[in-house]
């Protein structure tokens, strides 16, 4: 069953918190992964891989650079759910 935006955001925030040590509450929609959350491209790859497993979606490597904000990632994941 497809998850809602809110559920995906919560799950993604958990992954980001686990990977980076940030507070999950800081992972909000309009924040940029690199500029606001200080997440580098290697951590981003880890987050994407864990999100693929958690949400059972595929996120091709070439699409990762388009996931600039948390909202971009949430929209991508909800859109990719079958």
């Amino acid at each position, binding site marked *: 069953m497809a998850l809602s935006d809110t559920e995906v955001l919560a799950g993604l925030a958990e992954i980001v918190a686990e990977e980076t040590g940030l507070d999950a509450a800081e992972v909000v929609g309009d924040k940029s992964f690199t500029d606001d959350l200080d997440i*580098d*491209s*290697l951590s*981003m*790859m*880890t987050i*994407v*891989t864990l999100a693929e497993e958690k949400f059972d979606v595929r996120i091709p*490597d070439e699409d*990762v650079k388009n996931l600039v904000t948390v909202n971009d990632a949430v929209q991508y994941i909800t859109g990719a759910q079958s």
Partner: protein
Amino acid sequence: MTRISIKRGPEFSRILGLGAARGENLVTNDELAGPIDSSDEWIRQRTGIVTRVRANPETSVVDLAERAARDAIAAAGIDAGQITTIIFSTFTYPTMTPGAAPVLADRLGCGTAAAYDVSAACAGYCYAIAQADALVRAGQSEYVLVVGAEKMSDFVDPTDRSISFLLGDGAGAIVIGPSTEPAIGPTVWGSKAEGAPLIDMTASWLDFRDKDIPFPTLRQEGGSVFKWASFEMPKVAAQAIEAAGLKPEDIDVFIPHQANMRIIDQMIKSVGLRDDVVVGRDIADSGNTSAASIPLATERLMRDGAVKSGDIALQIGFGAGLVFAAQVVVLP
């Protein structure tokens, strides 16, 4: 009916001795950061590298291999003349033919040994061990010298941000020979060949000959390689442990290819090794030396007294191809 005979060798093989040689110069992050618009802090945080070893211009990859090989042969307690096969893993020997292996054979005084090169990038050392193990147990070769040696500094663009600053020059060598006990587990190896474009050269030699382009150098799609190595390779490592009839908690030492400290850290999380497992982290000092990285990391652990003869080690190499190989070995 005419029937040919086959040979059979000893039931088991083992690593009898190990040697290592690093490039003469310790190059700091500060020395490389300028042309890539970076910093010591960024390089350390992204890769775990503090220094990398680079050879002098006049030092060749065979020079490095020779030093490592002589130490390995001495450690194995045999004479060079007893080596019956040399497998030289490298992608940075700068002459198409003859290979590096016969050049080394001549220098070492085993000039009648079977001698050939293997080009399997950062998996080259583990690929060569798979071959050496099989050759010994098939009775095809009594003592095999396996060399992993690279001089990547000859093939890097100092302005390349994707890979150049990671790379170092060095050689590791081992002698594999007969054993009365199992000491090299089955190799789990293969490829993800669709990933070939992810680590490659900027041009071919023919492109360089025919077009007005810079000398070909190394490049990679670092993010994709990181993802593959960090999340696909732990599965291969687990298969190698199982193939050796062991469980993760049986592994005393983990010696992965020294590609990036963050890959090493992610792999340790995923493979489920013991909390007190000893881990090879030579990348901090030597950088990423491709086919030499696992034997150099092993040598550092041995030199530091962090491991002992008889320890059970899991090795895994992975790199351009994309190719990979893992096996459990007993340390010499």
